[in-house]
């Protein structure tokens, strides 16, 4: 068969047609996407765990953000533009977080609230680069701000090293000499574990007898529990989330290993008590300060419950709402300046055009001020605002230091007594 056989030509023609049809469809699709962006809306990104096992954390963040956005929209939005949330799930999985970040960027989002977990946030930040300004309300890993690689990253949740300082203070007060430290090999847990190990080893006479990562989701922790017993550790410090901790402590108590457990805010979740039941008794953990008592906060909870009847607000509600409100304040100031500047430029251009106008041309349309979603918002100016100005929010006054960490937020120490988290008052030498 030669190349010029009619059949070949027809099939070649058909495939070209098919290709054209496909690309036309693609273009139409792109066009409709562009059209779908509603006029007069400011798009705000949200990245975090909305599905999966850690969705309770992500949903708490989302609820807080929703409250702040709805509240702001009621007040007229951002300089007249209503705010619209563009949400992407990452299930706290670093690989999914990078994909979510890329999707948010490609949908034209410049400001993102998120992500939920430290590992996912680290991976998402690399994907954002300097193309988005990100505020997380639950990622606590020190390194996220300490590394200095992400100048446009901020967070309203206090950092991990504040937790470990409280934990080491407790260890000193109880005078535990032999310490076992376990973590779940994740970004969040391992960083906490390393940090508490450094603090413990710096103390003379204190010894870290076990320091290990365990495989999350394992069926049995018997071997490591035997080891804790064998090394006569007096306390077990856990770096990780509540699910593995519950399994660990239940299996330890079953083997009559009764060393006290100290955990991070990953344990400060009512689900830990549900999962570990009796074995949870006496466990210490650091947890977020209760923001729910102020009048503003009560109003926020009421508003939230009017939309979600059965839903609990979770741990991060106020951090998320505070983060969003601080951003809105910054955007209003920076946005107004950018709008004024663009307006002045447009006016100048219009005047110039009017001067060169020949008598025959119709009169030019009046110059309108641009909307906030149309102007270029300078990240540097937003950062400067967040660093310098104190914003009153539902979680209290919010200001960030140069690295992006919130100033003045802390943790408290809790102990589980009779199935409830009870705050342990920190005496002067425990006070930080």
């Amino acid at each position, binding site marked *: 068969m030669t190349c010029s056989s009619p059949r070949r030509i027809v099939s070649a023609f058909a495939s070209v047609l098919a290709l054209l049809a496909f690309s036309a469809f693609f273009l139409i699709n792109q066009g409709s996407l562009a059209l779908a962006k509603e006029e007069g809306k400011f798009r705000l990104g949200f990245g975090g765990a909305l*599905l*999966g*096992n850690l*969705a*309770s954390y992500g949903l708490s963040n989302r609820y807080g953000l929703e409250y702040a956005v709805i509240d702001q929209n009621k007040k007229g939005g951002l300089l007249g533009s209503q705010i619209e949330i563009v949400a992407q799930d990452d299930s706290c999985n670093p690989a999914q977080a990078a994909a979510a970040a890329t999707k948010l960027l490609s949908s034209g989002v410049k400001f993102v609230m998120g992500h939920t977990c430290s590992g996912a946030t680290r991976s998402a930040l690399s994907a954002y680069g300097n193309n988005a300004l990100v505020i997380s309300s639950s990622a606590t890993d020190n390194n996220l701000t300490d590394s200095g690689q992400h100048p446009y990253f901020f967070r309203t949740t206090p950092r991990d090293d504040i937790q470990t300082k409280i934990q080491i203070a407790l260890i000193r007060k109880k005078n535990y000499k032999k310490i076992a430290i*376990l973590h779940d*090999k994740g970004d969040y847990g391992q960083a906490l574990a390393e940090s508490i190990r450094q603090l413990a080893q710096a103390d003379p006479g204190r010894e870290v007898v076990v320091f*290990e*990562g*365990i*495989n999350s*989701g*394992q*069926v*049995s922790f*018997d*071997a*490591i529990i*035997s*080891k804790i*017993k*064998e090394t006569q550790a007096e306390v077990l410090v856990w770096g990780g989330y509540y*699910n593995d901790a*519950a*399994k660990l402590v*239940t*299996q330890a108590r*079953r*083997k*009559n*290993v009764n060393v006290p457990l100290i955990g991070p805010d990953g344990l400060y979740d009512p*689900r830990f008590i*549900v*999962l570990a*039941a009796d074995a949870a008794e006496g466990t210490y953990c650091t947890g977020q300060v209760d923001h729910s008592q102020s009048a503003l906060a009560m109003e926020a909870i009421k508003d939230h419950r009017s939309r979600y009847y059965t839903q609990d607000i979770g741990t991060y509600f106020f951090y998320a709402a505070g983060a969003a409100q601080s951003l809105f304040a910054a955007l209003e100031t920076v946005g107004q300046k950018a709008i004024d500047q663009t307006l002045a430029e447009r006016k100048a251009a219009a005047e110039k055009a009017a001067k060169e106008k020949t008598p025959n041309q119709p009169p030019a349309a009046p110059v309108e001020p641009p909307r906030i979603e149309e102007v270029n918002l300078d990240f540097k100016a937003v950062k400067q605002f967040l660093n310098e100005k104190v914003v009153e929010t539902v979680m209290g006054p919010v200001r960030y230091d140069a690295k992006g960490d919130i100033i003045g937020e802390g943790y408290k120490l809790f102990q589980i007594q009779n199935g409830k988290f009870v705050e342990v008052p920190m005496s002067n030498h425990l006070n930080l």
Partner: protein
Amino acid sequence: MNFFLELLVGGLTKGGIYALIALGYTMVYGIIALINFAHGEIYMIGAFTGLIASLFFSSLGLTGWALLALVIMVAALWAAMYGLTLEKIAYAPLRKASRLSPLISAIGASIFLQNFVLLTQTPNYLLFPDLASDLPGLSFLKPIAHLASPIQVCVIVMVALILAVLTFILKKTWTGLAMRAVSQDPLMAQLTGINLNKVIARTFILGSVLAAIGGVLIGCATRQIDSNIGFLAGLKAFTAAVLGGVGSAPGAVLGALILGFAESFTAGYFSGDFEDVVAFVLLTLILTIKPSGLLGQKIAQKV
């Protein structure tokens, strides 16, 4: 010495847990040469059903052996229906397709079931009651609780029991004979009057029952279940089955025990960080020396 003993028992428990799942895995493979990746999900469904059943029956006031037995029965029944449906929907239409197609179908079924439970039940972790903790007759274990708890004993005893029953079924009953015939030569088996579909359906029911028993007992041992447990457990059980020789029931138990001991002693004497590394290096070594697995038989390839 005591430490060594504890690690030994810990390894035995872990191995027993892997064996409970690996037995069903390897049996299905042995008979229809299909790696049923959804086996781990059937185990997960067994655990969820077990949890619901245990809440229901304990609210009726049942305790002890009766509760445990009833919960296992309900879970086994429910899981068997899932296994049977899965076979009819995902594998039976592909019986004449190439060997890769049912494998992909199995992976798809596994992902489907996992997300199905996640969406229709809960994405949260759930507390599983320890049904074996106060079984009458096992209270003599109280003084040695640091070594062996009632549930650990139950797991080990159940593995031995399943191994015995499985061997009995395969070697002594007509169904077992038919299963072995199908495993050797499906076409010839059909010519002798064996109903292929019936035998394969029974294989899946048996495999799912084993998975569900595992689901309940392992739930009692780990005290925590979620929609994701099937994945990791299935992976470890698959490893154990391969280590022992896929298709061999005693091989699966042996492989599971070796895996359990390797993980336990590595975590005990070295570090939990290296648990999986050592276990899988061991797997690679054994398979390099004996590619068909420890107790696997080399099957001559038909040309």
